């Protein structure tokens, strides 16, 4: 068996791949931002025992953590496109759909991995020593100030390792974008396979591409972890 990568020299295929990679990276970055927003807010609701919001948060977490992300994406895509909300482009005056495939993928990634992030951040908050919290309370910090200035900064640091796996999971899950016709790297790959029939070679390359993207992500997380490490704390 010989592998034939001659098609890689074709500028058209190169463009499809590069565009796909940048779309995948953009989907992932936006998804990560949304994931953190949802994770922190959800964990805060649960941790601070916010009345009326605790139960809905728990239901949300269970609903999105324990169902396949693909089902969630399709559900979001069909439901939201059905509602048919549109935006008016201020430049052209044309009306464009608000919930494109791209938006739905970002939402879906943020919700699925955000639900997991809620639990991860919450476990980080629970690992903050109760003495540290009591120290803040004795200095007059309110419950919310204690959360903001003491528990969250320490708790987020403590949950970096599981959060790194969650980020990798999000990047991998973003490959579902192809199924709602978003031109991510998987989409580019599918197109190239249809034209060249070099299925094995293309998939091998895509494998490496994901490995590089997640590898870079893990590297960045490690850098951040080192930068925010608390000297003399823990190990």
């Amino acid at each position, binding site marked *: 068996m010989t592998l034939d990568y001659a098609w890689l020299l074709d500028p058209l295929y190169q463009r499809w791949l590069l565009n796909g990679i940048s779309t995948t990276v953009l989907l992932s970055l936006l998804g990560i931002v949304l994931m953190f927003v949802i994770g922190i807010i959800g964990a805060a609701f649960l941790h601070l025992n916010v009345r009326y919001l605790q139960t809905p948060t728990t239901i949300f977490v269970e609903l999105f953590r324990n169902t396949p992300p693909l089902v969630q994406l399709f559900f979001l895509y069909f439901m939201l496109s059905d509602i048919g909300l549109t935006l008016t482009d201020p430049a052209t005056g044309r009306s464009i759909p608000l919930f494109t495939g791209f938006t739905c993928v970002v939402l879906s990634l943020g919700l699925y991995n955000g639900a997991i992030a809620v639990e991860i951040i919450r476990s980080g908050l629970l690992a903050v020593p109760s003495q540290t919290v*009591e*120290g803040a309370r004795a200095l007059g910090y309110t419950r919310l100030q204690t959360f903001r200035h003491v528990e969250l900064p*320490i708790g987020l640091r403590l949950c970096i390792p599981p959060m790194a796996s969650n980020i990798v999971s999000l990047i991998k899950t973003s490959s579902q974008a192809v199924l709602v016709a978003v031109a991510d790297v998987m989409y580019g790959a599918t197109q190239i396979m249809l034209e060249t029939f070099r299925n094995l070679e293309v998939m091998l390359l895509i494998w490496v591409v994901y490995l590089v993207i997640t590898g870079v992500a893990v590297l960045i997380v490690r850098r951040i972890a080192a930068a925010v490490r608390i000297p003399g704390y823990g190990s």
Partner: protein
Amino acid sequence: MTQVQPSAPLIELRDVHKSFGSIEVLKGVSMSVRDGGVVCIIGPSGSGKSTILRCINGLITIDRGTVRVGSFAVETLTKDKHLVPLRHEVAMVFQQYNLFPHRTVLQNLTMAPVQVLGEKPAVVRERALALLAKVRLTGKENAYPGELSGGQQQRVAIARALAMQPRVILFDEVTAALDPEMVSEVLNVIRELAREGMTCVLVTHEMRFAQEVADEIFFTDKGVIVEHGPPARLFKSPNDPRLKAFLDKVL
């Protein structure tokens, strides 16, 4: 807020009861501390000493009785916001230091005055540097708590309490977690504060120190104050058999 006569004690607990679940931990505790007074609470483990301190600064709510500190009726303060002025006046130092591990020594001192009391950072910084000099930690401003010895961390904790410019400091077994050679460096700082007239309530197992600095000793057992009095009398001629037995064990 009620008007308080100048002669009234600064801290006054009357018939304080507190239960955790079905266990009654305080069964009617009454005590008073005058302004500038130094009192020590001694007693066996689990007798409610820490709980008494936590009642004084409102870290726990009481079930019955009254706790008054200056003009504050502590048991009526329920909202976090209302507790801020109390905690401005009553600082606390803990056995495990309870510092903020993610902030430098200097930030540990400046955080609360700026974030809670809303003071100007530059003013607080000056005060914090002076306090670090007072506890002999100049040069450690940018170290993190985890990089310091236990004795140093506890001195940072005392400086952090002082940065709030309190009228009272509560000390909860602040030398119990320290290696013997570090105990004296912390006790020296407390001794100095007591001499300067800071009102101090100390829970301690250091009986010699209690004897030396306190003007009054309270002995607790099983949630009640069994006996109290000036150290000279209490240590020499204890009346209650429980105090006698306790002193036999620890002295």
